[in-house]
């Protein structure tokens, strides 16, 4: 069983932002969380993501959770 800090989930926020020509600041404004927190998620330093944050991201980016998160061995 992996420890609390180890996981194999990668966040593909960069790709989605580039495809939609959107900045991190703009996304942060639209979903209502701070740029710092969004950077933590983008850079893979987050340990957990709230369903409310995930829902807001999917709504604004018009995508599915699977487009944002991937499991990579």
């Amino acid at each position, binding site marked *: 069983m992996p420890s*609390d800090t180890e996981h194999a989930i990668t966040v593909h926020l960069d790709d989605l932002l580039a495809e939609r020509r959107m900045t991190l600041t703009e996304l942060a404004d639209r979903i209502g*969380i701070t740029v710092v*927190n*969004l950077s*933590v*998620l983008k850079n893979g*330093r*987050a*340990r*957990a*993501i*709230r369903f409310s*944050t995930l829902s807001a991201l999917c709504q604004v980016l018009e995508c599915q959770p699977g487009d944002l998160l991937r499991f990579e061995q």
Partner: protein
Amino acid sequence: MNNTSGSRLSVTSLYLFVTVFFWLSVLGLAIGLPAGIIGTATSDHPMSIHATVPAKTLGDLPWRVDAPDRVAASIPIDHLSTAQIVAFHSAIALAGLAFLFAFWQLRQLVGSVRAGDPFSTDNVRRLRILGGMLLIGFPVFQYVMAGLNEWILTTGGPDLPSVRVDIDLFSITALFGALCLLVLAEVFARGITLREDVEATV
């Protein structure tokens, strides 16, 4: 006044109390120890040892008055060698320093609560140190002091039959206090993990 400011006031009061008590203890040790050394080295009756004697040696008790087998007694000591003075006061000095160290840890801990950041690895270490000192240091001190008292009693005390220095190695209060501190340390350690999780949740 809301609960937060009330709590903050009580933590500040506690911090001030611990700080004042710490510095009074430093002063007490700084004055009391040299005074004790001078007193025992120069006095005709340098010290008394707390021991127990058989109750029957106290003489006949009034009708219907019962006494336990052994009763506490304060035995006057008339002669102390230099080695005994040095050993006794070294033990007192070491115990005093250990007490001051423990109290300083407690002061730092209360200080971190006052600063609003109690869930730190430093505080986990402090609580473990305090718990460990109470769990191991207290009985060790009791054992050492009992040994010293026995030594002083047999060489410098009056020739009393069946006099004995009793050792109270396992104080239930100290044991319970130590366990509380060690459990609290683990609660703090878990609290740190939970806080880190919350901080890394987006």
